[in-house]
C-alpha cells in the first residue's frame, strides 16, 4: 500500500508582525514549518503503516528552498521518502497552479492508494486543494475526515465531520482524503527518529521532471488578483491589572462600569 501525503510549508503565523502605519504583515525572515492539518495527515499515514506493515509513505511538498530543511520533520515523523519542489517557477501559484503541480507529481510517482491532505492550509485555508486535486486525478474525495479506517479489499471507511452531522462513508481506493485536527495527535519525533531521517531519500524535482511549463503554474497565470492583504483595523486599550486579587477585580469592575457594558 502506498500513501502520499501532500504538505504545505508555511511561515510561523504566531511570529507575524504588523506594520503599525500601514497594517501590512511583515513576512520576511520568518521561520517556516509545516501546517497543522498536514501533520495530522502525515501522522495518520504513519499510524496506518505501523498497524499494517506493508505501507510506504511518501511526503510531497512544493515551496521555497527552505523545504530542504523543513521536509526533514516529515521524514522524522515517519515518512519513508519525500519529494520536494522548490523551483521559483512554482512561486505565486494560485490554487489551480498548486493542484496542477501536485497532480503532475503524483502522476509521476505513479502508483498510490490514498492521497492524504489537510482539510485546508493553516495559513490561507482556502480548502481548495483536496477537491481540485481529486478532479484533476479523476478520484473520489472524502473530506473533513476525523476518523479513518483502512478496510480489507482496498476500501476505506471514514467519518466526516460536517457542521450538523457526522457522515460515515466508504469508498474504494484510490481516493483523496482530507483530514481535520481531531483525527489524531501528531507525534513529536524522538531524537533517534530525527537522526534516522537523515538517511531517508529526498528527491528534488523541477518543472521538467513533472512536465510543467511557465504557462501552467506560477504567479503569471494566477486567476486571483490580491488587491490588498492587511491586518484588520483594531484598537484595544490593553490596560492590564496585576497584583492583589481583590484590588485587580475592583479595578476591572470600575473599568467595565465606565464602559457601560455591565447590565444595570
Amino acid at each position, binding site marked *: 500500500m502506498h500513501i502520499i501525503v501532500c504538505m504545505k510549508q508555511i511561515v510561523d*503565523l504566531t511570529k507575524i508582525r504588523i506594520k503599525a502605519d500601514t497594517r501590512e504583515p511583515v513576512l520576511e525572515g520568518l521561520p517556516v514549518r509545516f501546517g497543522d492539518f498536514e501533520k495530522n495527515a502525515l501522522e495518520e499515514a504513519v499510524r496506518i503503516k505501523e498497524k499494517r506493515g506493508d505501507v510506504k509513505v511518501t511526503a510531497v511538498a512544493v515551496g521555497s528552498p527552505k523545504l530542504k530543511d523543513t521536509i526533514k520533520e516529515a521524514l522524522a515523523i515517519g515518512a519513508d521518502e519525500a519529494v520536494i519542489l522548490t523551483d521559483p517557477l512554482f512561486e505565486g501559484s494560485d490554487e*489551480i497552479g498548486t493542484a496542477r503541480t501536485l497532480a503532475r507529481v503524483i502522476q509521476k510517482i505513479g502508483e498510490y492508494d490514498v492521497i492524504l491532505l489537510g482539510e485546508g492550509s493553516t495559513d490561507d485555508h482556502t*480548502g481548495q486543494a483536496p*477537491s481540485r486535486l481529486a478532479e484533476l486525478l479523476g478520484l473520489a474525495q472524502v473530506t473533513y475526515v476525523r476518523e479513518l479506517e483502512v478496510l480489507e479489499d482496498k476500501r476505506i471507511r471514514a467519518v466526516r465531520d460536517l457542521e450538523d452531522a457526522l457522515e460515515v*462513508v466508504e469508498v474504494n481506493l484510490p*481516493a483523496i482524503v482530507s483530514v481535520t485536527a481531531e483525527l489524531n495527535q501528531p507525534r513529536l519525533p524522538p531524537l533517534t527518529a530525527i537522526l534516522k531521517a537523515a538517511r531517508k531519500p529526498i528527491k528534488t524535482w523541477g518543472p521538467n521532471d513533472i512536465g510543467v511549463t511557465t504557462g501552467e503554474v506560477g504567479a503569471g497565470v494566477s486567476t486571483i488578483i490580491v488587491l490588498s492583504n492587511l491586518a484588520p483595523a*483594531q484598537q484595544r486599550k490593553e490596560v492590564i491589572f496585576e497584583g492583589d486579587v481583590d484590588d485587580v477585580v475592583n479595578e476591572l469592575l470600575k473599568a*467595565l462600569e465606565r464602559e457601560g457594558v455591565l447590565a444595570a
Partner: protein
Amino acid sequence: MSGVLVYSERESVALELLTFASKLERPVAVALVGQEAAARAKNCFTYGAQRAYTSADPALTGLQADVLAEALAQITKQADADVILIGSTLRGREVASRLAQKLNVGCITDANGLRFEDGRLVATRYALGGNTISTQVIKSPVQVIAVMPQTIQAMPTGDGGSAEVVEAKLSLAPSPVKMVERRPKQAGSVNVESAEVIVCIGRGVGEQSDLEMIQALADTLGGVVGCTRPVSHDKHWLAEDQMIGISGKMSSPRLYIGVGLSGQIQHTVGIMGSKVTVAINNDKNAPIFKMADYGIAGDLYQVVPKLTEKLKAR
C-alpha cells in the same frame, strides 16, 4: 448577457446569495436539487431568482461533492452563467472548489464580504491564519465564489411573478463514495453568535468540573459560555457550536471575557466584533492581552470566583 447561478444546500444561505445576485442587474438562476426542489423554488423567486434549475436525480442523494459539482457544471452551461455563488458551508466549500476545477477557473472560498465595484466582484476573506484580511478579485472569465453564511442579509425583492422552474437536463453517474450512516449532531442550547455577553474558556481551564465556576460568572453577567477549539473538539466539554473562531462561530458581544486562553489568531478573529474585551490569564505575555481592552494577569481560579462574588454584590 451571461448570468449568475446560486447554489447552497442551506436555503437561508441561498436566499442571502440571491439577494446579492439580484442587485447585479443580470439574469439570476438558482440550482435546487433533491425531492420537492420545485416547491422550494417559489421562495427563491421572492428573493430575486428569475429561474430555478431543479433536479431530483438520485445520483445527487447524499450531496457527494464529485457528483454535485458535475451537476452544477452542467447547470452553469445551461444557465449560461459566468458567476457562480455558493454558500461556503463545509460542503459548499468543497463543491465550489471541485466545480471551479471542472471549469478550470478561479475560486474564492470562505468569503466574508462581497461587493460589486468598478464592474467587478470584490471579495474579502481571512488570510495568514486570520492575521490579515485579503481583498481579492478573480480574473478568469468564469468565477466561483463561496460566501460564508450570514455575510449578506437576505431581503425579499419582489413577488417573482415572471420566474420559471426548469428541470435541469443532467447526465450524472453515482458517486463512488457510499454513505453508510449519518449521525446528526446534537445542537447545543447556547448561541454564541447572538450572545450579548460571552465568557470564553481555553486550555488554561484545567478540569471539566471548573465549568461550574465559569458558568456561574456567565450567569451573573446574563451571558453564555463559549470556548476555543480544544475545549469543544478535543476535550468535548462543550458543544462544538460553542467554539468561537475560524471554523467555528463569529461573535459580537457587548462584553467578551477570555479566561485561560492564549489568544491564538484562529480564535481571536471570532471576537473582533466585541465591544469590550477582557482577558484573564496567568501568563502576562499571552497574545490575548494584545486583544484585550482590560486584562488581569493572574490566577483564573482566584480571579473568576472573586469577580462573580463582587458582581453579585453590586
